């Protein structure tokens, strides 16, 4: 399948055999327990080169910030060798200005799927899914432009009423005076409904989209996750279902949904099946995980910062600014990865051709040389729109305006209805260095 990709710029391939499945066991010190305090104190004092920050442990426990703070100060561009038989080793880029330099230099730092793609762990070489986020120019541009109109300002204006009425419906259905999972009942519910609309997918089967999103970003090694082959099978099943929709729409009048847009645009209508699948995965994950986790994160941060919650209740006009601050503070995708196409110098470090370069957006968003008090959640922060969460350069998030609109409407409607929503316990987090998110978060709305 991979050979179907025709891109003359590809001059490198992954070093073969350097990582093979099953992956060798992960090196990690033994800890008496996985308490946040224990893990943070380790990260605060361990030799920098002893830590593999790609280890899901640091993300599930939400302790990674301790390590990134040290990297920003002591070694802002730092190569991780530990566990390189699992991930081939990678450069950590941790400061705002260095991340910006990589993100805006697409000539040197490639996103190409055949080189591994845009996440720290290379795309499965037996199951390469080309998608426009994991392409370089010129192919990236024409495919991105095929879907861009659906999330343009003019088109979003047409969605606003629908988003608001659904948001009201979901909020009005929430139980009062009893504990429930905010992730399931609100975050997933709202984002899956939106996704179904964008794809022209049947609403009654919207949770399938969430399922495929979760499967596509899952770690095949983790207990409870589908293994490598099972994952491939599930995604091929997704492809089959969407191919039926494609076939219905390709010869029909354009209907304005993503499947119809891809089927009618000259840049995408002849995509090979794996490329259709790749772009589906991109659009499903892009429209699902990110907004979902910002919906959860926002409520969590307000509970952790009662002063900010009070500020918001006193001034509903802060919602729009708060939305940007939530997206910064959450950083729902912790990183994007590139592959160096040539030797280059970055922040005084020599990056070799073929090296994996990980831009930690979650760290850049906490860079106190650029941002004022970045570790604090401040809903009326000046110039809150200047955050790294959407990325910069040609791969900048295409759906950013839709995400902002969904979050803005949600908070406007929450404030109209509920005096308070109480987070009852620490949320359960996703064990991933890529998707910075929540599996569940129990809350209660006072009766």
């Amino acid at each position: 399948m991979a050979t179907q990709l025709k891109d003359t710029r590809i001059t490198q391939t992954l070093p073969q055999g350097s990582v093979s499945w099953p992956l060798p066991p992960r090196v990690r010190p033994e800890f008496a327990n996985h308490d946040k305090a224990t893990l943070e104190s380790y990260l605060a004092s361990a030799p920098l080169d002893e830590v593999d920050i790609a280890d899901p442990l640091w993300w599930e426990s939400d302790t990674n910030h301790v390590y990134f703070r040290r990297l920003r100060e002591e070694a802002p561009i730092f190569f991780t060798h530990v566990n390189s038989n699992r991930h081939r080793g990678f450069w950590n880029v941790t400061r705002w200005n260095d991340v910006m330099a990589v993100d805006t230099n697409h000539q040197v730092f490639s996103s190409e799927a055949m080189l591994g793609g845009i996440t720290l762990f290379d795309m499965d070489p037996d199951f390469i899914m080309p998608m426009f986020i994991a392409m370089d120019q010129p192919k990236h541009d024409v495919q991105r432009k095929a879907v861009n109109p659906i999330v343009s300002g003019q088109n979003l204006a047409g969605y606003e009423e629908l988003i608001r009425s659904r948001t009201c419906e979901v909020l009005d259905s929430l139980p009062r005076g009893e504990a429930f999972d905010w992730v399931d009942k609100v975050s997933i519910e709202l984002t899956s409904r939106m996704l179904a609309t964008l794809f022209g997918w049947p609403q009654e089967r919207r949770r399938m989209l969430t399922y495929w999103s979760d499967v596509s970003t899952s770690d095949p090694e983790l207990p409870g996750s589908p293994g490598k082959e099972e994952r491939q099978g599930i995604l091929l099943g997704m492809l089959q279902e969407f191919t039926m929709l494609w076939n219905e729409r390709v010869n029909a009048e354009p209907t304005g949904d993503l499947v119809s847009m891809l089927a009618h645009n000259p840049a995408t209508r002849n995509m090979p099946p794996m490329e259709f699948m790749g772009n589906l995965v991109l659009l499903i994950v892009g429209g699902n995980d990110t907004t979902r986790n910002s919906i959860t994160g926002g409520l969590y941060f307000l509970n952790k910062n009662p002063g900010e919650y009070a500020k918001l209740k006193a001034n509903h006009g802060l919602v729009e600014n708060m939305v940007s601050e939530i997206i910064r503070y959450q950083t729902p995708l912790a990183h994007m990865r590139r592959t160096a196409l040539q030797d280059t110098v970055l922040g005084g470090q020599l990056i070799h051709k073929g090296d994996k370069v990980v831009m930690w957006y979650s760290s850049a968003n906490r860079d106190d040389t650029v941002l004022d008090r970045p570790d604090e959640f401040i809903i009326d922060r000046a110039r809150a729109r200047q955050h790294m969460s959407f990325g910069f350069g040609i791969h900048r998030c295409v759906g950013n305006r839709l995400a902002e609109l969904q979050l803005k409407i949600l908070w406007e409607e929450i404030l109209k209805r509920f005096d308070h929503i109480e987070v009852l316990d620490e949320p359960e987090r996703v064990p991933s260095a890529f998707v910075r998110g929540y599996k569940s978060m129990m809350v209660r709305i006072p009766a």
Partner: protein
Amino acid sequence: MVKIIYVEHTGARHEVNVPDGENLMEGAVQNNVPGIDGDCGGNAACATCHCYIPSEWQALTGERSELEDSMIELADTAQPNSRLACQIKASAALDGLEVHMPATQH
């Protein structure tokens, strides 16, 4: 100070004074002109300060850089006279420049 007139899609005009050497995205943001966001802080990396330059001013406002060109070309609202305001610096020669804005920034 350089007089710059920002014109919204609706036709609403905002006449502001921008310090010599300041870029026109900052000129708008610092003066609370709606319709220019400047999310990337002036790196030509987000296209949220997208604007149109009238033909008579184009020679004075210069050419797009490669990155600027890439970012503009991804916008649905791109036109031949599109620029990113953050890549144009105020100078005496631009006194009286009209900068037109698209309906929305993306």
